[in-house]
């Protein structure tokens, strides 16, 4: 029986695909120059991870170990093709913007990694949930990066949201300052590298703080002894 709260914690924080496993860096760096692009790719990745994890888990007992990887890749490619066709039908402009990165989801290591590392050893509900949460963890990092890069790079955020959420979302765009000069570095791939590094550093800082607090909570128990002994130890 899978522990769902642990799966959640793993996918979103402890074993986050983008910040800890550092998988799928290519789309992470290539697409996240605006919130709308990040969300588009994030949603597509969540869908593909969910579908591929579920299918892999369903056929896990009938797939010989020797040919499991080609089988997984076929499943993933099928899921990606479905996503592509769906996007072409319902969000064509988004499909155009994401371009090559959409079919490239097939080669995203997160997806094959979860298929081989988790889905093929676990039951359907657990595998499906893991796919959903891992995808969400990845999409969250995409969203954060996209937001930071769009804000730093162009001085505005949530531009062109109508590409995903329909015409009503066109007014979501929020402009920081009209005179903001374009900071091109943040929009170019080097900015993605730098910001990803900073995000990872931020996560490590938070982890260190948490570890320190936990250490401080568990430590005092030993110091309660009232005996004063200056030298030597009792053996």
């Amino acid at each position, binding site marked *: 029986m899978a522990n769902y709260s642990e799966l959640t914690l793993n996918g979103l924080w402890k074993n986050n695909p983008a910040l800890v496993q550092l998988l799928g860096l290519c789309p992470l760096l290539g697409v996240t120059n605006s919130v709308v692009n990040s969300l588009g790719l994030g949603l597509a990745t969540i869908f593909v991870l969910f579908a591929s994890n579920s299918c892999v888990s369903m056929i896990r007992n009938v797939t010989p170990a020797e040919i499991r990887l080609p089988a997984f890749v076929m499943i993933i490619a099928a899921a990606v093709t479905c996503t592509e066709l769906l996007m072409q039908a319902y969000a064509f402009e988004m499909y155009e913007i994401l371009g090559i990165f959409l079919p490239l989801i097939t080669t995203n290591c997160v997806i094959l990694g979860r298929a081989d590392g988790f889905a093929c050893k676990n039951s359907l509900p657990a595998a499906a949930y893991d796919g959903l949460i891992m995808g969400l963890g990845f999409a969250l990092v995409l969203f954060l990066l996209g937001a930071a890069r769009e804000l730093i790079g162009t001085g505005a955020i949530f531009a062109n949201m109508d590409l995903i959420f329909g015409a009503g979302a066109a007014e979501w765009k929020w402009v920081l300052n009209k005179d903001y*000069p*374009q*900071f*091109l*570095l*943040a929009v*170019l791939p*080097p900015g993605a590298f*730098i910001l990803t590094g900073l995000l990872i550093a931020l996560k490590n800082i938070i982890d260190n703080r948490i570890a320190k607090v936990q250490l401080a909570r568990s430590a005092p128990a030993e110091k309660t002894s009232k005996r004063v002994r200056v030298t030597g130890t009792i053996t």
Partner: protein
Amino acid sequence: MPLVQITSPHAHTSQSTSSVMMLVAIATLPGIAALTIGFGWGTLTNIVLSIIFALALEAGAVRLRKQPIGFYLRDNSALVTAILLGIALPPYASWWIILTGMFFAIIIAKHLYGGLGYNPFNPAMVGYVVLLISFPVEMTRWAAPLELVSELGTSGVSKPTLIESFGIALRLIELPTIDGFTMATPLDLLRQNDALMISDLKQTYPQFGAQGGLVWEWANLGFLIGGLFLLYRKIYTWHGPVSMLVTLSLLAAIFYDGGSSNSGGSPMLHLFSGATMLGAWFILTDPVSSAVSNKGRIIFGSGIGALIFIIRQWGNYPDSVAFAVLLMNFAAPLIDHYTQPKTYGHS
């Protein structure tokens, strides 16, 4: 009878990082003077603002890293980085350009890699390249030489005084936008040129001087003098700068072809325009990010010289010292690996 045993080397120098950096800072003065006389107070405002931001950022970064602030501020390395970036920026650069550049130079390029001595790239050049890529419009607007400002007689453009210059740098006073206050540099003209022979080019545009660009030749001469002073004080060896200048001149001589419209300017034009001398004597000599051995420094310098010429001649940017230095910084560990001097007695 003293019983303290000291191992060799017994000879030592009194040069500390702090005094070396101070000498480097002093050696930039002739070049800065030439730039200030030629282009107005803009270079000076750049440098002053750079130093203020650099020291503040350095203090902040050192404090965050829980290191002694006074000790690191006194090593003068942030000062030199600030001066070099201030010289490289177009005169009258606005304060936020300088702050962004200094942030990338001090925080990203130096302290994130572990502070002074651990930075694989020259901090000032990282700051400059970040700015050049991010703000192409502001970064390619170089002030016109003062004597041409009066010569062209453009109305409304007064030569800003020192106080006015600070006002412009802080953007309290609007930068004069009238043509004639800013002007294409000689290397810009060379880059855009596609129809004129070099001699015609020089006659058409007053920005060219006797050898390099107007003002630029004096600035380069100033940096050359500063560099020779540092060489005399044994701050660095001749290998890096000389091999860079020789490579650049050789390539320029090969592709000069007597000055047709396709050629890239004479060796003298290349040596005395743009950031050539600043790069040779102050930037590629950075002891941290360059190659270590003498042989390695020759390869390092030649590589930079070749890259400068290649990018100036066939690239998209008119000047390329920063790109060339950063590219060769990448290669420095590799050069060090293959030029490691053999220990005596080992073959």
